[in-house]
């Protein structure tokens, strides 16, 4: 099973539907992750600094990156231990690509 972890900034609501306007990026990423969980053999974990601070403190690599760059380095997307994106959310297509890569054996050209 592939592990996808999304480290996110402190926020009250990761779905994006909380506030005067829906947060487009969050709405999209939440839906994308839901869909990917159904389509791929993947376990999605979302760690937001406000509610899952332990995951930041216990993951040295992430801790160092935030320490050094501040929270603007977030969100960080990690697929099976590889950092595949930072400072931005990936779209559904991009995430799907990463998962396909991770799940198919490396193909040498």
């Amino acid at each position, binding site marked *: 099973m592939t592990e996808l972890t999304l480290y996110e*900034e*402190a*926020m*009250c*609501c*990761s*779905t994006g*539907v*909380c*506030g*005067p*306007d*829906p*947060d*487009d*990026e*969050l*709405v*999209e990423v*939440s*839906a*994308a*992750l*839901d*869909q990917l969980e159904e389509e791929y053999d993947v376990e*999605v*974990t*979302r*760690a*937001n*600094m*406000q*509610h*899952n*601070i*332990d995951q*930041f*403190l216990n993951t040295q690599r992430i*801790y160092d990156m*935030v*320490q050094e760059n*501040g*929270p*603007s380095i977030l969100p960080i997307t990690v697929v099976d231990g590889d950092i595949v994106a930072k400072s931005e959310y990936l*779209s*559904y*297509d991009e995430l*799907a690509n990463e998962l396909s890569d991770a799940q198919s054996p490396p193909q040498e050209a």
Partner: protein
Amino acid sequence: MSTHTGAREIVEPSGKDTEFVFFSGKGGVGKSTVSCATATWLADNNYETLLVTTDPAPNLSDIFQQEIGHEVTEIDDIDNLSAIEIDPDQAAEEYRQETIEPMRELLDDEQIKTVEEQLNSPCVDEIAAFDNFVDFMNSPEYDVVVFDTAPTGHTIRLMELPSDWNAELEKGGSTCIGPAASMEDKKAEYEQAIDTLQDDEQTTFAFVGKPEDSSLDEIERSASDLSELGINSQLLVVNGYLPDSVCDDPFFEGKRADEQAVIERAKTEFDADATATYPLQPGEIAGLDLLSDVGGVIYDGEEATVEIGSATDVDTDQSVDVETLADPESVAEQLTPGDDTRYLFFTGKGGVGKSTVAATSATKLAEAGYETLVVTTDPAAHLEDIFGEPVGHEPTSVSQANLDAARIDQEKALEEYREQVLDHVQEMYADKEDTELDVEAAIANVEEELESPCAEEMAALEKFVSYFQEDGYDIVVFDTAPTGHTLRLLELPSDWKGFMDLGSLTKGAAPAKGDQYDEVIETMQDPEQSSFAFVMYPEYTPMMEAYRAAEDLKDQVGIETAFVVANYLLPGEYGDNAFFANRRAQQEKYLDKIKDRFETPMMFAPLRRDEPVGLDELRAFGDEITGLSDLTEREQEVTIS
């Protein structure tokens, strides 16, 4: 009378497990008194008893005449009784700090501040408040724990949601319901607490109310909210009815008859297992003798002792001249517009008569020639009753010239908000190039998300803000929802503004909305355009509640209180006996205290034989209210048509 009342059967512990008694009701109805009396009565009956108050302005120390505070304290003169006062604000702050503490390692001060602001949400406050109950629901050393407040249906629903939202929890995501992850540790504890609340063998939900229709209506609403969650309301205590012996003129005889009719209605209509009543006393209830009188009446079916002759309680030298406190001109100045539209906010707890005062003010202002809109956000929609005419979701004209009225229909507002959000999301996906994305599922996701209590708040706020954009009115009068709720609505925009300024947090927040809320807040902060008036009756708890709310408004949103409305002042021409002399002196004492605390002009409104209904009665009532009775006619602009 039987010595075994229904109330006794309900409240007296029957098993081995600790039992819980929750008293629910608005401030000023005597909830503290009844809670203290209940705890005292239980202790006197040899039950090891703990009394927990989460009243932000507790008066346990007045009632027991002993300092209590934030630690469990044994009551000196009563065996088996301990008490504790919990400050809900402090509890919420502690909860916030606990959440933030671990982040300090990783974030700098600026970032921490942002998180702190985010945690300043109504949801977090409610979770913290519920924590207060949970903390004491495992107290095996006591036979019974008495709480002088109860969680509302809204809070319980909030706490129940995480179990419905397990999927969200498993993913580690969070919802606007609150910090899902931090709740996970406590999930079991919360579920246990809710089970206990729903177990009517172990838990008693009791309501305390006044003998007034509006009080009973309110209780019925809260009770039906609770019953949807499987919680039965078992006991109703109607407190503060006029004793027969003191009503010796038509005014008070009539009042008493009305009250007795409400008590009858409560007994027949309200689905409680038992109803108890306690009369109004000439003074405030303090000291153990009166407490045991209250307990004796409610639980042992004894006759109440009302010492009506003790006019000596009042130091007549100290009583204040009400006339000198009133300042009609300053009040009128706060009511009328300058160059821009004037926004008038009447705020205060349910049952203080703010709808009536708002409707009366609006009527008198319209009569004086100002184009006026009166808006209610009160779900009970008293405006229709008050005007005796239908009032719709959109501004509707009523028979008074220059006057329109509107009622924010929560359900409609929610629907409008939902549509708006869904339209937005649909539009957003229309622009996306992602090939495989299941747009329908994504939208269904959002739709589900919109089922949250937070969405309701958001929706009400949207509607509220929309009235700031209604053109063509000189004055817009808001008869706001009960204080706490309103405050939250008002506070929220300023919180959001914080988020928006900080940009990165609320990604993609539309700047247009931010500006719009900015404008609203600025308008509310500007004393030339907005007047906030706190409506209360001159007694301890209502005064303290209003004062706290006013301080909150000032500290958190930067809004100063413009004036205070003291409602239900006992008329001088009726009630000519020692009992009412005492009551009147007590009111005067508190009017003076209110003046000292708020330092604003005061509007006085008298107690009426009946609440005014219809425009004629509203006009007549307005003539008896400070500042409304002699409004100068608006100078008519010359219009050429």
